């Protein structure tokens, strides 16, 4: 096993437990420019929470416009200023900017950086048994590139011409021509710069995650003994590493088109009373490049949430996850397929219909591993002994969203059916459930579950329960009615519902959606209170509050930089020995050798006892359960 070069401080096991991080260094090196993966994870988390709140507020502002088109919004003037028209209405261009920034923020800053950044950073060293990431310095850079990116994106919100407004997919020519929409001026420039930095951050992080998982597992931690969280982070990092550079290329070419007069994506354009000189470019090329990242991005967002949920459902069902290897296999299959389905976003762009056929075939195939995952989750619940911790509730919520949102993908992946549904609210409902809400619930589940490890304290359960139920019901009330609006053909990104006769009959549903969105956002403040209050005043956490088997719960309550005060524990078994027949307790941590549990060993496990003695527990055993 590779050894780490982190100097492990002489760790005083702090008996008071009240104070964090007692090792050397000052405030700046400990909390700001820290190279400790746990601190970096928290930095990602706090930044992610900030963005989630902002993204949520933006969505509520445009939901006000959609749900209550006659409402006077003058009271928002102190915040939005000139974006409220003299009639007290939202400016239509600002509406598009809101939609764009909501999408960008949620997809990239919350569900990529906030989710992967937090939990990959936090859990990979802890669950693999490493003192830190392969490169703590690169890991720190990863956060600071993300921070810089965040600052630039945040600044773009305050430009007089507004932030980017061409949709989060920034299709040119709209995004390339400031004369087409104000947001394509400086707002789009900052968007592109911010995203370029964001990609740098993702790549630095991803390289670290992959390296750490491959090289720095503790003794005995074979790949088949990795918790599913780590498998999920592993696949996620690989997908990100292979697909984000393509977005980088697309962004760079778009920057050239915008600033240097090239024609990668522009051709035959007459706008603002003049014919532009650009010929020969293709807007469709941009869409191919964008979705070559954009679709894997869906799984970059979703896989970590699925990994987190696998862990939480198994722990709180007190059962092994059903089909551990099938879960890994389906994630691998999803990861591979995610690269060859991108053009299902482009069935009606004028792309060659034969390509449409191929992509439809590949897209519908991806439903198979997804279905397997759902069935495996449900079977894990079967004959369990379910403890409904807040994390468990959010995980069950995720499975429900993944199911509800996933099956509508079967409609949209069918190119013939997609003709009518493309770019309608049906799509909005689909991806908000399957990717947005499911991943968001995965993130919340992860926070509730690992908060005790992050901050050494427990979050308040009752507030967690209220938070869950309002959010769960709220999300369904927000997104389920959108299916009907979408079947009726109503297009997305419309400022107003009343210009068309064919879809102006949904004022009631739209008002319901908006009210539900406001309530759902309000419920998140319960979470925020719980989060920050518990961080300082919460009940002190026991070492292993959920009776979990994985390695992170063998660390002290407040793990220092280096994670384990002494030697890193060795691993002897897979992470899902819950309720093993014959065992004294209903869980056996990964660090317990088979030699100590003769009463519950299976025959093949008894044979492994001999190998445990040699002090190198690093046995790679396939198919032991």
């Amino acid at each position, binding site marked *: 096993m590779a050894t780490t070069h982190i100097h492990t401080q002489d760790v005083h096991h702090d008996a008071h437990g009240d104070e964090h991080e007692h090792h050397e260094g000052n405030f700046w090196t400990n909390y700001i420019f820290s190279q400790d993966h746990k601190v970096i994870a928290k930095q990602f988390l706090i930044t992610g929470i900030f963005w989630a709140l902002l993204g949520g507020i933006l969505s509520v502002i445009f939901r006000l416009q959609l749900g209550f088109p006659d409402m006077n919004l003058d009271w928002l003037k102190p915040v939005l200023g000139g974006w409220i028209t003299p009639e007290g209405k939202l400016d239509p261009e600002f509406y598009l900017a809101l939609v764009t920034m909501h999408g960008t923020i949620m997809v990239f800053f919350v569900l990529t950086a906030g989710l992967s950044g937090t939990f990959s950073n936090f859990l990979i060293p802890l669950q693999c048994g490493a003192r830190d990431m392969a490169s703590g310095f690169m890991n720190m850079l990863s956060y600071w590139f993300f921070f810089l990116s965040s600052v630039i994106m945040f600044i773009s919100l305050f430009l007089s011409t507004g932030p980017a407004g061409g949709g989060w997919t920034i299709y040119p020519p709209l995004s390339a021509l400031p004369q087409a929409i104000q947001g394509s001026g400086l707002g789009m420039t900052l968007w592109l710069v911010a995203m370029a930095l964001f990609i740098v951050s993702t790549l630095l992080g991803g390289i670290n995650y992959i390296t750490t998982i491959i090289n720095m597992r503790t003794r005995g931690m074979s790949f088949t003994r990795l918790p599913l969280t780590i498998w999920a982070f592993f696949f996620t990092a690989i997908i990100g590493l292979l697909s984000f550079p393509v977005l980088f290329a697309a962004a760079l070419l778009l920057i050239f088109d915008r600033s240097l007069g090239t024609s990668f994506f522009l051709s035959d354009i007459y*706008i603002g009373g003049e014919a532009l000189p650009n010929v020969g470019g293709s807007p469709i090329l941009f869409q191919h490049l964008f979705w070559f990242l954009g679709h894997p991005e869906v799984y970059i967002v979703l896989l970590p949430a699925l990994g987190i949920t696998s862990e939480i459902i198994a722990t709180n069902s007190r059962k092994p996850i059903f089909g551990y290897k099938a879960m890994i296999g389906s994630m691998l299959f999803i990861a591979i397929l995610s690269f060859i389905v991108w053009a299902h976003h482009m069935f009606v762009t004028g792309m060659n219909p034969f390509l449409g056929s191929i992509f439809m075939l590949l897209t519908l195939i991806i439903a198979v591993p997804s279905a397997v995952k759902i069935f495996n989750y449900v079977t894990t619940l079967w004959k369990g002994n*379910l403890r409904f911790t807040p994390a468990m509730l959010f995980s069950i919520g995720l499975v429900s969203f993944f199911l509800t949102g996933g099956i509508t993908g079967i409609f949209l992946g069918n*190119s013939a059916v997609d003709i009518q549904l493309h770019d309608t609210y049906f799509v909005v409902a689909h991806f908000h459930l399957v990717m947005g809400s499911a991943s968001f619930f995965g993130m919340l589940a992860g926070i509730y579950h690992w908060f005790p490890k992050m901050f050494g304290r427990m979050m308040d359960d009752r507030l967690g329960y209220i938070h869950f139920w309002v959010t769960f019901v709220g999300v369904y009330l927000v997104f389920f009615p959108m299916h009907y609006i979408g079947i009726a053909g109503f297009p997305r990104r419309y400022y107003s519902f009343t210009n068309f006769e064919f879809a102006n009959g949904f004022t009631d549903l739209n008002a319901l959606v908006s009210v539900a969105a406001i309530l759902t956002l309000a419920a998140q403040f319960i979470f925020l209170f719980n989060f920050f209050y518990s961080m300082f005043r919460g009940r002190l956490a026991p070492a292993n509050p959920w009776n979990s088997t994985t390695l992170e719960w063998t660390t002290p309550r407040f793990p220092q930089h280096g994670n384990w005060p002494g030697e890193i524990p060795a691993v002897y078994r897979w992470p899902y020995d819950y309720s093993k027949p014959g065992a004294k307790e209903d869980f056996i941590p990964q660090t317990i050798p088979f030699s100590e549990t003769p009463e519950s060993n299976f025959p093949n496990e008894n044979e492994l006892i001999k190998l445990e003695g040699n002090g190198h527990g690093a046995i790679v055993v396939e198919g032991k359960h």
Partner: protein
Amino acid sequence: MMSLIIVVGVVLALAILYLIFRISSLVGIAKEKKEDEVSENNGIHATLFAIFMLLGLGAFFWYSFTHFDSYNLPVASEHGVVTDMLFWVTMGITVVAFVVISIIMIVFVYAYQYKEGRKATFYPDNHYLELAWTIIPAIVLAVLIFTGLRAWNDITSPASAEAEVIELVAQQFAWTVRYPGNDNTLGKVHYQLIDNFGNEFGLDLSDNKSFDDFKSLELHLPKGKEILLKIRAKDVLHSVFLPHFRVKMDAVPGMPTHFKFVATKTTKEMREETGNPEFNYELACTEICGKGHFSMRMAVVVDTQEDFETWKREQETWLKQNPGYLEKVPANLRESALIKSGIQVNTVSVESKAVFSAGGGSN
């Protein structure tokens, strides 16, 4: 004043909530709860899930059936019937899967909620089960894929030579339509010929085919005849969406696209079918294109073929409406331009001569 009262009220309410939270926390500590004990309220969540599922499924079926007509758009094209059928078949299959899986999940959640002293069943895998739920979805999806592929191939197959060719041009934030006129062939266009004074199509006036083209601000379609929409955009991406005809195709600057379909009901028939005398077909934009995206509407009229032909004959050609452009017509084509555009009916009339000399006098 009012807002001050609201702020004070909110602050008070939050303070009260905080106090309640603190007190109940302290009570919890005083009661000395054991650390890893499962709360006695655990079962509440199982019950709530069951209630939520029953109410949710109930509302889903109730709304879907009672409001069917409000969200189900009547269909008025041949391929639309096919794609709608596919849609509803997929709906049938997925709703069954959705309901069954949801119920199973919630039943498990309810039945296997925590009970003290019970031990969960160690059940790590079962290859037959896993094989079953890999193969069954695969077969169902294969059926959907092949029916979908067949429909998709039909829809996207080339249009026949007799199809009625109509060109839709998108720009921020309006649509214009160009009909090919008597020769049934659209004249050439080039984006650098577009101007602000009348040549909004960028018509190439050295092309003989362009003289009888005419413009319309309403999309008129014949019933029962194959229509080939040729679609282009002048500035940014747009998308043609004819919801009742189940037609959608992006308009891409620099890359003309097309969509062929057959309309099956005239506007009049649709008014009778829907019982709405005000009913109109509509054309909407479904690709974000800027400030006016949400209002990029065009009225659509479907006529019988006879009415459609009559309507076409009544339209003035673009050249007749913009006679100033005659000067851009090369000299050898002017005669043809005058006749094809209908400026001159048989012999050179006095008026058109005047136009001719005014327009192209310098030649």
